[in-house]
């Protein structure tokens, strides 16, 4: 499983296109285990160890998902996340050291979609990767026209109307704006700051956000398979749609 820089990992001649995962990690042990585990699930793994190779890789290949360790030696991981976001529309999952709460939030602000905290279990990381790829597919189908559907959730932005399993949801204007933002970013962890600036401009406070999210959560209910808003304490919220 030894690799050269940015070399494609899997030599499997399978003609079906495997999702390509870019792993930006410099620690040899983590490189090995991430490569082995992701390759074994049928992903094509691009392994790079520094910021310059990462930017080269996203310019040369179509990357379906990026796993980025925020603690690279040669470059600030948050900064790299911002640069990658300019080239990439696909999910970025950042890996952070425990206790680096603020860096996690900064990376999400700079366009990362999800985070995993070290030490992580491999099934946990793989589940995040799968969820990101699935959500991205779901959201990629959303047209920018007024009407879109996300699992059991249907949103009509022109009419300011949302339906869950066909039943209209009674939402205030802010709640609707919040739900639309969540839906367009389904599967992404949105930070408090992102939600506040996009829904309230500069006027909102974290308490306002919290009350609105709580009300929206209760209106969405907790039907199995329905949309759920996850709370990420100290970080933000995420809308998950498993349908």
């Amino acid at each position, binding site marked *: *499983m*030894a*690799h*050269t*820089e940015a070399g494609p990992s899997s030599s499997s001649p399978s003609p079906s296109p495997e999702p390509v995962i870019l792993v930006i990690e*410099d*620690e*040899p*042990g*983590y*490189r*090995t*285990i*991430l490569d*082995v*585990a992701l390759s*074994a*699930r049928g992903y094509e793994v691009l*392994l790079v*160890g*520094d910021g310059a190779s990462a930017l080269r890789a996203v310019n040369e290949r179509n990357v379906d998902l990026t796993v980025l360790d*925020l*603690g*690279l*030696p*040669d470059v*600030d*991981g948050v900064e790299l996340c911002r640069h990658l976001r300019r080239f990439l529309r696909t999910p970025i999952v950042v890996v952070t*050291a*425990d*206790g*680096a709460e603020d860096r996690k939030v900064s990376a999400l602000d700079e366009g990362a979609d999800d985070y995993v905290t*070290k*030490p*992580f*279990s*491999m*099934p*946990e*990381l793989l589940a995040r990767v799968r969820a990101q790829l699935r959500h991205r597919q779901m959201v990629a189908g959303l047209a920018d026209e007024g009407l879109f559907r996300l699992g059991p959730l249907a949103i009509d932005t022109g009419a300011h109307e949302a339906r869950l399993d066909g039943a209209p949801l009674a939402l205030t204007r802010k709640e609707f704006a919040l739900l639309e933002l969540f839906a367009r970013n389904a599967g992404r962890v949105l930070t408090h700051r992102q939600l506040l600036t996009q829904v309230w401009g500069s006027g909102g406070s974290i308490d306002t956000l919290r009350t609105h999210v709580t009300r929206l959560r209760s209106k969405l209910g907790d039907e199995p398979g329905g949309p759920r808003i996850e709370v990420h304490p100290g970080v933000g919220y995420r809308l998950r749609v498993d349908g």
Partner: protein
Amino acid sequence: MRLPQLRRRGLTGGLIGAAGVAVVTLACLPTRPDGKAAPALLLVLPVLLTAIIGGIWPAVVIAAVSGLILAVVFLPPIGSPSVAFGEDVLALVVFLAVALAVSALVAAVLDAERRRLAADEARLAAMEGADEQRRALFRSVAHELRTPLGIVHATGTELLDAEVAHSPEVQEHLLRLLVAETSRLARIVENLLAMSRIDAAAWRMEREPVDVGRAVDAAAARVAGGRDGPPLTVAVQPGLPDVLADPVQLDLVLTNLIENAVRHGGPGRPVHVGASFEGDQAVQVTVADQGPGIDPAVAERAFEPFVTSGDGRSTGIGLALCRTIVNGHGGTIELRGAHGGGTVVVVTLPLS
């Protein structure tokens, strides 16, 4: 209390005492020639004040001045320091005795109190320093343990995951990774113990002639074993004499340096270890990697314990331990930038 401060306090006390003596003297002038008791009693006050502010010696001076004023100004014959026998001599003696005794008592009590406060402050400062060091140690150790633990956790959970069946080759590969990372954990713990032994001065150096070339080979082989690290080359100059060193401590240094280079040199980049003559009085060991190199500002401080290079990446206690050991052997250790990027650690050990 520091000397200049003490002196300033004495001077202040003396000046205030002198001012008090002047005030009392002027105030009592109208009572002459009958008033003797009033000035004798009142003059005790400036002496006491001097003792409180300035301590015992200024108080003695002010007491002497007061006694003189009492004798010259208030006790007959007025205008002369001589004093009539009898009652007046007694008054003067009692005055001096009371003034000095009270002053000595007050000064001693105040002094003890001041000294206790100063000692408390010093102890508190020392405790805070030790606390800060302990916190730094905890932080550093936590950082250093985290990476191998995280790799072990991820690898273990992957091996347990029933979702995929890895080939025997891949399984062996992962098991080797587990072994390599657990030996890294063991090394960190070993470093910690060595550090605490050195701190407690409980580790005596057992020097004996050591073949540096062989020691380098052994350490390199141990680090290379079990991991798919970057290529590791060793070059030992032929004919190197033995150095007088503690073999266990020297091995700890070499292993730490080589492991650091392998870890920070960057994936796939070769690490070169060399041992050669440095002049004819010393042997030099170099460990060179081709990693991103080291910031000169960090290079200077890299051997201090607990310096971490941003992002929670720790140079840890490894380099600090190396420096302690090398210096203990009368040698030097330094970090340099290598030609074309990378870092070289240079250890120089004297032959005798």
